[in-house]
């Protein structure tokens, strides 16, 4: 059913991505590929994996931007991006087959790969470029928030978190329930001013981004080096050393 759920469940699961601490290592993208190529969405096909013109499905891609002009004032911001599990996603409603759907119980947006006809219309409807066609299987694929990991009772409790979150070495990714105002993610959004990407689209992403912290500006101005000491005022010994070294 591609109409959006009319009832909202108890949970709204999503991610918070901290643009202040992300170091752009691509570990989240890599671990995502690793986990998801063998789970719910398996395989994440690669074409020409070891030669020119590689093509393949990735759920998560890490961009790097430069902000605030060029030169010393500019800062580099690493920017991982995957499906934001929007509240009002047209990627669901445009689907003619019912393959693309949003779960009422936790808000996760999923694709039923047995129903998908690979028409690609849902990818056209996503403003964030979060859906990629698996050209071998002829069906659309996207981030599942690691649905086969976060509810997997075979795993120890602390491992039931998306692969990207589990692997991030700088703790730039957080997973939680936005319906609970006291959850880790709700608190982070409140305290750090979490924001939506492209709010003007009206898709109301569940996942949020935290802005990079602004420093006091001390690092942005180039520091002047101390000039070399004037030798005229230096002692006899130092002048002799200078002469010897300058030979």
């Amino acid at each position, binding site marked *: 059913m*591609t*109409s*959006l759920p009319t009832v909202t469940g108890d949970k709204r699961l999503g991610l918070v991505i901290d643009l202040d601490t992300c170091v752009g290592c*691509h570990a989240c*993208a890599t671990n995502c590929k690793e986990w998801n190529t063998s789970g719910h969405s398996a395989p994440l096909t690669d074409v020409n994996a070891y030669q020119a*013109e*590689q*093509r*393949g499905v*990735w759920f998560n*891609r890490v*961009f*790097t*931007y*430069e*902000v*605030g*002009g*060029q030169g010393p*004032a500019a800062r580099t*911001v690493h*920017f991982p*991006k995957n499906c934001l599990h929007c509240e009002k996603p*047209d990627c669901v*409603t*445009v*689907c*003619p*087959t*019912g*393959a693309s759907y949003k779960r009422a119980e936790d808000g996760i947006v999923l694709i039923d790969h047995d*129903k*998908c*006809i*690979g*028409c*690609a*219309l849902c*990818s*056209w*409807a996503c*403003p*964030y*470029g979060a859906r*990629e*066609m698996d*050209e071998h299987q*002829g*069906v659309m694929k996207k981030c599942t928030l690691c649905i086969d990991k976060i509810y997997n009772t075979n795993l120890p409790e602390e491992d039931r978190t998306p692969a990207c979150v589990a692997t991030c070495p700088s703790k730039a990714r957080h997973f939680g329930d936005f319906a609970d105002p006291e959850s880790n993610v709700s608190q982070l959004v409140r305290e750090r001013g979490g924001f*939506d*990407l*492209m*709010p*003007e*689209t*009206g898709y109301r992403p569940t996942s949020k*981004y935290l*802005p*990079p912290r*602004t420093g006091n500006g001390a690092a942005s101005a180039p520091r002047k080096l101390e000039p070399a000491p004037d030798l005229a005022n230096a002692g006899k010994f130092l002048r002799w050393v200078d002469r010897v070294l300058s030979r």
Partner: protein
Amino acid sequence: MNPAYSVILFTTASGAGYGLLALLAVFAAAGVLPASTWLGFVGIGLGVALVAVGLLSSTFHLGRPERAWRAFTQWRSSWLAREGVAAVATFVPIAVFGIGWVFLNDTSGAFAWAAAATAVMAFVTVCCTAMIYASLKTIRQWNNALTLPAYLVLGLATGALLLVLVSALFGVYRPAFATLAATLLVVGLALKIAYWRHIDTEQPRSTLGTATGLGRFGEVRLLEMPHTEENFIMREMGYAVARKHARRLRVVAGLALFVLPLILLALALWSGPASVLPLGALATLSAGLGVAVERWLFFAEATHLSMIYYGRTG
């Protein structure tokens, strides 16, 4: 957006087919066209063939064409599903009306009602096709009030040219058909000029600043791509036609789709019935080419929001 040839063929062929079927239905029910077997057979046959070719070609770009039947299920929310349902449903009145015309030589009474239903359903189906594009908030060149009327008028105009041709072939041509085609072409030209002016002057709402939320810190610039090769998103959404070429192709589309057919129709109106067949054929050929270029541009000039993340400006 990547202009897939199957989709261009689909929208142009099915648009002309539905246009022809709607006009045949209206004129037959009104008694303007005689209910003679071969006229009905060729006219309706041509319309149905165009629609069928279009529908078939639209399944070529599916990853899993064997599951295409599933695309009829989500008509509550999806314009693509609605289009599928409408397209198939349209065949029912076409069949009734066609049987009446071709086999019973009767286009009155119940068959006139079937004709009316054919015209209405053809209209509905083309509306659904247009709405697939017009409803996408991610593409400002499609998500505007001119997309739907342009699809309707261009479908009707190309259908009217086919009507001129078919009616001339069977000696039932009337100058009113050529006048109708010319009027629709003029309206179409006005719509396309308004459309091109609109997409050229509209200020895009989204920028890399709003896309990343980093605009508050100043100008945002792409420093590094997430990957070295083109991914699906870039191939599907990233197709861009150079502005210079777009200008030139707009002129080509304008000349082939509107100006040349209008001149040929004027000549046909002026020189009398004998020359209608060759002139009408030329006009149809030219408009067919022109509408394909117009549709190609409709895709190639469409910019998708997701490409902002990949550093597209403007």
